[in-house]
């Protein structure tokens, strides 16, 4: 178990930053949270992640690790004797968790983000349909992975719960802005119950931003300049 200093460069509103924060909480690893100011990048960030210049970046004994899902795996492997396992133990279950996490980042989240950027009703409807299609796939994935247990990872939250759950705050903001429920008891009954359990988890609660605060922040960053 490593006792070297742990720091995380991030920002409160970023779902990607939430991922390593949840992982560190699950492993009870104390860390210093270095908040970036929105709109600018610190010297430390640029030095620690010169390739992408993005958050989150984990600094473990000053060695940087970037890319949120890669950081989560690093945390699981480094503090393997602490808390429960974040990645599933069976190779196939692990593969499925990685597969769905990649799908969420490459397809699902892209569609979700496009809802807020959509111009006009037609485009909004089309993107909403894409997200709902994705949700249906994830509902099935949840039922397959969880096997009747409360989380994708079984009894405790794990890699895929974190990979998807980090977007719940932004999902709610998008639902409010679009005036359309995406995750609900009728369309996605398992996921909707899972979402509540996820947000209530002690590793998640302290780092999940409040929806109202996030909505205000969204207004600021998506504000269109007036003509």
């Amino acid at each position, binding site marked *: 178990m490593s006792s070297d200093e742990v720091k995380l460069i991030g920002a409160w509103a970023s779902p990607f930053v939430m991922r390593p924060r949840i992982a560190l909480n699950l492993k009870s690893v104390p860390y210093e949270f270095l908040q970036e100011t929105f709109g600018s990048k610190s010297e430390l960030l640029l030095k620690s992640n010169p390739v992408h210049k993005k958050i989150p970046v984990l600094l473990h004994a000053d060695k940087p*690790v970037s890319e949120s899902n890669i950081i989560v*795996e*690093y945390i699981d492997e480094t503090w393997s004797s602490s808390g429960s396992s974040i990645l599933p133990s069976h190779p*196939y279950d*692990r*593969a499925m968790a990685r*597969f769905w996490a990649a*799908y969420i980042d490459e397809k699902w989240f892209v569609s979700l983000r496009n809802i807020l950027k959509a111009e006009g009703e037609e485009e909004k409807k089309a993107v909403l349909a894409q997200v709902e299609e994705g949700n249906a796939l994830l509902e099935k994935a949840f039922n397959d992975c969880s096997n009747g247990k409360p989380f994708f990872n079984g009894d405790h939250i794990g890699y895929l719960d974190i990979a998807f759950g980090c977007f719940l705050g932004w999902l709610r903001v998008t639902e409010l802005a679009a005036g359309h429920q995406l995750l609900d008891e009728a369309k996605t009954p398992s996921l909707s119950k899972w979402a509540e359990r996820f947000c209530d988890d002690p590793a998640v609660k302290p780092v999940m931003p409040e929806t109202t605060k996030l909505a205000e922040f969204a207004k600021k960053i998506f504000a269109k300049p007036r003509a």
Partner: protein
Amino acid sequence: MISLYDFYILNEKLKNKLRTEEFDKRKRDECLKLLGFWISPFSRRVEMALKFKGVPYEYLEEDLPKKTPLLLELNPIHKKVPVLVHNDKILSESHVILEYIDLTWSNNPFLPQDPYEKAMARFWAKFVDEQILPLGFMSLVKAETGIEVAIEETRELITYLEKEVTGKYYFGGKTIGFLDMVAGSMIPFCLARAWECMGIDMITHEKFPELNRWINKLNEVEIVRECIPPKEKHIERMNQIVERIKST
């Protein structure tokens, strides 16, 4: 030429085999099939991994861009190769498959054991596919006015890999590893051939002495040589693709 009906029969046979209790689950290696495409660096790297582990498998060639009913059945979400079928388990996405192979067959591990080294290998592998590939592709499609900029930008990215491999035989150290399989399948034996067709010498000896040394070392590895598309046939196909791009 095989008809759609024959593919349907093959599909049905495979589905039955997958569901059948013939499988002796004690023999992990019993049913291992890889759906691939000879030009795809993504499927080539999976072949490298399987050969590295010394695991026998059956190879099923897709004739892309046509997609067989089998491919659509096995990978309905992405409809892409590679797809690995291991007994009753179906896996897609090359990085996911590579990690699965390394965990399932524990001989000759190709991912680093140290968590930090492992994180770095994963980081650079993602970088190859998500940064170098799209930007490298831009060098092929940009009109003459944009091409020099695209080439320079691609070289800037490749410089990171030059640093990573400096002082090592391979990215994996003394033997090839995960990052060698990902970067090797993508850069020297795929992108570089496309660049060659366009008359672009992207990875110059002058700017990239370490990477050139790495490419020579890769060529010495038998399983790498076995898993790369045959050069002449590949260049011919690349020329056709490049002609098609130029004419649009």
